[in-house]
């Protein structure tokens, strides 16, 4: 299967500093790829580069389209749904309004919304509440649901477990797995919680200080003794 | 453990870098003295009217410098500095007209009164931010002409007050306009020196910290209320002193001269020169004095449109003001010749 997303010698910059130094990356269609690495490795920056939120160079190809010159909103319209670090929910709007915003670029609002309530029943209960009143875990679910309302071909998740209790993280990851199966969407995931991510993912990349230092199937990385010691803790 | 044999840069090397035999500090003094000498000699080659115009430039520069302290370095916007300018002007005028105080003796009381007014204003202003503070200061600017007309026993009401023009000291042999030019020049130099000392020191750093990160500043133990009020008071001290000088130089005060337009002009001059700079105040003074006249030359049918257009162009090309935008460039160029020295503030970037 051809990769749905391909990065070739992509560099990313925060202002004048080059933070990601020419990496190659691919996400297989229908699969889940995870980017692992410590804080500050450049994982989030890579995701932001894909969505045009930081200055970038190099080739970024999504479903046959070049993304390198496009604006963030154009990239979103093409079918890339990015759930940013910190979730990015519209805290001043209601849960339902947040979901409606997800379908700004698509129609079929009502049916998509029903499906989202199916995945996240808690959101149905709180549909008229302000998003800012939701707990961290609920906001994460809302952010993912909002992204799915875009009927994307690629779902980009930036640290969905951040700041959440382990039980909540488990729930969320179970839902992500279900989504991957039922929605036929490819997923690019950035996670610091390496063990959980490697269980779910098909492929993995390890990023250190802006370089890709290891890549392969998730299982092979999970079995690698060095990686086990550095990132999995055993 | 300090190994004495390890090479490390001795402090004297930095401060004592010598360029063509002189330290950087010495060069700065020479440059400053040459500039001051040129500026002081200038009026003797110009007509009386031009001398008057340049004197007004310097007066406006002092006023704008006051605004820079408050809005640029401390982040509190003021649309009302015309009111403080008026306060200084009328203080000087009333002292001279009613009490026969000689002109040069009106400056300290005018400055002091405006400082107190600024502190009194700054205290309630602590409650307001952003557009709310703009409204409160705007109210001050709008109230000023009305109050000046109302208390006419003191202010002369609508007619204003005519002032006797100052007489230059007999022995010097220069005429009034050039004498006043030099007086104002000395005032400007003192104002800039005082401002520089304050803004480059602890107070200035506190101001900037409060502007940029008020919560962090308070958390570090900076008494935000005290410094914000101090910023207001020093700011109005400068602008009020400028107002007093204006009354002396023009020889006339009336409520019409201190409308909202004056406050807006100060703000625009501030922005065009560079709001968080000291040198920018001079550019601001030049802008306020000359651009309206130039605009009239360009189009006498719609001169204010040209003035407005000039404002837009300055903001598009140099959004941080002339000194704010060009300053870092000049600093970088200077670094090539004299490492470790900067000519313009760059510690006060927004």
């Amino acid at each position, binding site marked *: 299967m051809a990769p749905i997303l391909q990065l070739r010698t992509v560099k990313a910059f925060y202002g004048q500093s080059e933070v990601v130094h020419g990496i190659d990356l691919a996400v297989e269609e229908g699969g889940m790829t995870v980017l692992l690495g410590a804080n500050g490795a450049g994982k989030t920056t890579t995701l932001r580069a894909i*969505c045009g*939120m930081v200055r970038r160079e190099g080739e970024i190809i999504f479903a046959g389209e070049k993304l390198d010159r496009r604006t*963030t*909103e154009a990239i*979103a*319209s093409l079918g890339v*749904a*990015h759930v*940013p670090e910190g979730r*990015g*929910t*519209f*805290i*001043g*709007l209601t849960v339902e309004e947040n979901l409606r*915003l*997800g379908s*700004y*670029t698509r129609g079929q609002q009502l049916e998509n919304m029903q499906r989202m309530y199916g995945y996240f029943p808690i959101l149905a209960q709180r549909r008229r509440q302000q998003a800012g009143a939701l707990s961290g875990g609920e906001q994460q679910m809302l952010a993912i649901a*909002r992204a799915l309302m*875009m009927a994307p071909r690629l779902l980009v998740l930036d640290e969905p477990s951040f700041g959440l209790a382990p039980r909540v993280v488990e729930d969320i990851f179970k839902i992500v797995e279900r989504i991957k199966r039922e929605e036929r969407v490819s997923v690019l995931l950035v996670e610091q919680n390496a063990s959980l991510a490697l269980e779910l993912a098909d492929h993995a990349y390890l990023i250190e200080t802006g370089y890709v230092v290891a890549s392969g199937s998730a299982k092979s990385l999970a079995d690698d003794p060095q990686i086990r010691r550095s990132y999995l803790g055993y | 453990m300090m190994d004495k044999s390890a090479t490390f840069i001795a402090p004297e090397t930095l401060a004592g870098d010598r360029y063509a035999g002189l330290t950087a500090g010495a060069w700065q003094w020479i440059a400053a003295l040459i500039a001051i000498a040129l500026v002081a000699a200038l009026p003797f080659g110009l007509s009386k009217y031009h001398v008057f115009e340049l004197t007004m430039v310097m007066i406006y520069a002092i006023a704008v410098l006051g605004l820079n302290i408050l*809005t640029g370095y401390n982040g509190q916007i003021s649309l009302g500095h015309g009111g403080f300018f008026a306060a200084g002007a009328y203080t000087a005028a009333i002292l001279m007209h009613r009490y026969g105080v000689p002109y040069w003796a009106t400056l300290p009381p005018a400055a002091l009164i405006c400082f107190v007014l600024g502190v009194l204003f700054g205290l*309630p202003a602590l*409650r307001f*931010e*952003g*557009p*709310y503070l*703009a*409204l*409160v200061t*705007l*109210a001050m600017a*709008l*109230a000023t002409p*009305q*109050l000046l007309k*109302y208390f006419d026993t003191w202010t002369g009401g609508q007619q204003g007050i005519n002032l006797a023009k100052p007489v230059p000291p007999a022995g010097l042999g220069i005429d009034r306009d050039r004498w006043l030019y030099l007086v104002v020049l000395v005032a400007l130099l003192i104002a800039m020196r005082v401002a520089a000392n304050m803004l480059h020191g602890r107070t200035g750093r506190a101001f900037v910290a409060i502007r940029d990160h*008020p919560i962090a500043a308070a958390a570090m133990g900076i008494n935000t209320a005290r410094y914000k009020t101090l910023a207001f008071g020093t700011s109005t001290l400068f602008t009020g002193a400028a107002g007093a000088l204006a009354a002396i130089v023009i020889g006339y005060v009336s409520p019409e001269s201190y409308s909202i337009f004056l406050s*807006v002009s100060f*703000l625009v001059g*501030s*922005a*065009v020169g560079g*709001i968080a700079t000291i040198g920018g105040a001079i550019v601001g003074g030049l802008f306020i004095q000359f651009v309206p006249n130039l605009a009239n030359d360009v189009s006498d049918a*719609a*001169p*204010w*449109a040209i*003035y*407005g*257009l*000039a*404002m*837009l162009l300055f*903001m*598009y090309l140099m*959004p*941080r003001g002339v000194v704010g935008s060009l300053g870092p460039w000049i600093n970088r160029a200077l670094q090539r010749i004299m490492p470790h020295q900067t000519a313009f503030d760059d510690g006060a970037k*927004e």
Partner: protein
Amino acid sequence: MHQFLQQIFSGLASGAIYASVALALVMIYRATDLVNFAQGEMAMFSTYIAWTLMNAGLPFWLAFLITLVVSFVGGMLIERVLIRPVENAPVLAAVVVTIGLLLIFNSVAGWIYTYTVQDFPSPFPDRPVFGALMTTQDLGVIAVTLVMLVLLFAFFRFTSTGLAMRAAAQNPESARLCGIPVGRMLAIGWGLAAAIGATAGIMVAPVLFLDPNMMGGVLIYAFAGALLGGITSPVGAVAGGLIVGVTENLVGTYLIASQLKLTVAFALIILVLVFRPNGLFGTAIVRRV
């Protein structure tokens, strides 16, 4: 007592004008975090456009409609061309740009149309109502303002463009990630504000008479009203505008020293703000570390 009620009602009518301009100010502030000091002059210019159309023979409502459209497009263009370059610059630069626009519009209007004061027809008849407490003119102005408020509320609450605009104003980055063209939303916001301003100008002109300096005082009171109501609240804008209108009228009528009217009116407004520094309906700006 009768006079007192009369003053309240005519205060409400002028307050409705302030409320309309305040609405425009709030809309732009919510979208771009900027106070558009040129709002009044833009409204004045739109009113002149309507006047020109009517002088050319067009009936009032057609001229009004065309003016609304032209103002909407003009507002969008102004945001796109004149404001966007300073949207990411320091706030003061944008403030100076709006002040510059104020001067440009005022001066150009004076140049094209001269400073001669003109009559401007009102769509509402001027008959006393409710036992001479108000006129139909006053009622008409208040009604138009309330209709605008309702339409805006419906637009922002129920349409997807309105929702997208709210999202773009609150969190531009997240909005882009949803595919919302944030720049275009800002332009639409300015267009709407310009159209609202045009409506306000057309309502004020019959009363204050049309001249380039017509909206100067209106802008100042509208600004006060918008802040009194809370600069982020449209309902606050209307409430604030009405309160300011009534206050101004009562102060003008009952204050002995009439030349201090502006001073006293503002002093009262600021007194209220001292107790509610974010306005009556405004939300406190929450600062997170």
